[in-house]
């Protein structure tokens, strides 16, 4: 399988690197301090392909802590708030769009 780093990286706007935490699968975001957070607001934002590639490379290097890292689009509100850039990422960030059979 082709490594994400071998694929052409093309971003059209602000982006983050996201993955799933290895031990429990929870959605996580790469932070500017080279760590991971479950909170999208703490994600490192990249705006250019080179930046994205570097952030992805350091994320993938943490193979123990995270799995399946990739670049995902976000939107930055005027207030500075970071929001998921598409429905898939919105669902990953905020949860399923339906009521769970057993309320959390």
């Amino acid at each position: 399988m082709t490594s994400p780093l071998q694929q052409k990286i093309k971003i059209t706007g602000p982006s983050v690197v996201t993955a799933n935490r290895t031990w429990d699968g929870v959605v996580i975001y790469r932070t500017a301090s080279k760590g991971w957070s479950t909170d999208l607001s703490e994600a490192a934002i990249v705006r250019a392909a080179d930046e994205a590639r570097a952030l992805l490379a350091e994320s993938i290097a943490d193979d123990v802590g995270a799995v399946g890292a990739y670049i995902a689009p976000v939107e930055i509100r005027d207030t500075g708030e970071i929001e998921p850039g598409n429905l898939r990422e919105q669902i990953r960030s905020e949860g399923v769009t339906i009521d769970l059979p057993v309320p959390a």
Partner: protein
Amino acid sequence: MYAYDEIDRTLINERVSEFRDQVKRRLSGELTEDEFKSLRLMNGVYLQLHAYMFRVAIPYGTLSSEQMRRLAHVARRYDRGYGHFTTRQNIQFNWIKLAELPDALADLAEVGIHAMQTSGNCTRNITADQWAGVAPGEIEDPRIWAELLRQYSTLHPEFSFLPRKFKFAITASEHDRAAIKVHDIGLRLHKNAEGETGFEVLVGGGLGRTPFIGKTIKPFVPGRDLLSYVEAILRVYNQYGRRDNIYKARIKILVHELGIEKFAQEVEDEWLQMRDSALTLDDTVVEDIRSRFTYPAYEKLPHMPDELKKAAHDPHFEAWRKNSVAPHKVPGYAIVTLSLKPVGGPPGDATADQMDAIADLADKYSFGEIRVGHEQNLALPHVARSDLPALWRALDKIGVATPNVNLVTDIIACPGLDYCALANARSIPIAQELTRRFANHDTANLIGRLHINISGCINACGHHHVGHIGILGVEKNGEEFYQITIGGRADENAAVGTLIGPAVPYGEVADVVEDIVEAYLALRARPDELFIDTVKRLGVEPFRERVYATR
């Protein structure tokens, strides 16, 4: 029920120990994700959007009450209190933690459940008619042969790394409830002119990106030759299957590209070399498997007991009985389908509390046995007809007596974009909206048998190609759109549906389905002409006109 022997129990327990060690090494960093991925997949562990997903096999759709309680336990202790029954007689847990998976597997192993070969490029869970062993007119219980295939294919070294996944389904009834024509190998038990029992073997069926209806490769294979013939097919596939292109790697593509005659000849040549080998099943082997299936000690009971006569005055009971109760091969008994399709609910989901309650009801009313069907409903296979009123009241209390089996709200749906990493669009909210639109039972009854199938991507886990109305989610410029097909079916007359026109946005899907149903009601020749028959008679054009005239 089939009772596992010491070999099965040892195998399952050893697999738990192996996987525990593999998880430990993964979490310590000794194994990379690349190294670990194939190992977790061999144990049914996927990585989805929010978490790991754990797929557990329910071979030929048969569960004991004890096993159902253990599934409830796993849902409650390791997940979020529910599970999702799939179109391949598996159950999936959506929120499992990798670190806890070995414990979950160990708990399941105690009752003979495992997740082996529920993923990966190997032979998957062997599925069967969920009414196997109890359906009137059945040739014989197909689960005996499904169990033989399960034992034969479990950890088979030659077929653990096939070009792509490989799925068997088996039935022994005229009416196909196992969707055998859309499986890699479909098996139909029947008797030849000499009265001998054997199999019609179909090959190359499948849905996904490129749907094909399976073709009969051999009209009759005697039971003793089943394994050698199946192995010949797998060998030809293993040799010629496309490993260079994942989208062309399924056996259906090979059968299509070679042509069924050429493929059949290749199989025949291979088979002739191995037909009379160690794979030939002598009667003692088959009888040994047969002897490990136990059947209830049925009593002689009346067909129309007083309890049933009395309950017939209750229209709610009657609506449920007519819809959910099927004839049993033993007089005085019935097969009861439990609908996992409540109005507004996710199709196929059951909570841990429901699973526990169903297990208790199975003990009380069905000799402790439960079945799982590919339509994502459950069944109690051995219910005394005198118990039907009491059972109905109990099922109604726990929300699994919606009288909609085979009706428009009995929707098959994959998890879709709410859970699945492959999905392009959501399936569950579409299904929920449709169940609300058609919630009125009288309306649904008026419409009659109508199967809606929804998939959130081209991989077709919701079997949309073979829905009477099929709905496929696609993504267009970041928005969810849905292609609508009509005329598909998954039974003995299996067919792939025809696209009716351009994809419609998320918000219009339910309106479109309503338009299609209204067109059907206006066009059907008689009140008992089923939707699928009207489409067959008239084609898609009248439906296309109705849907797109104002869009």
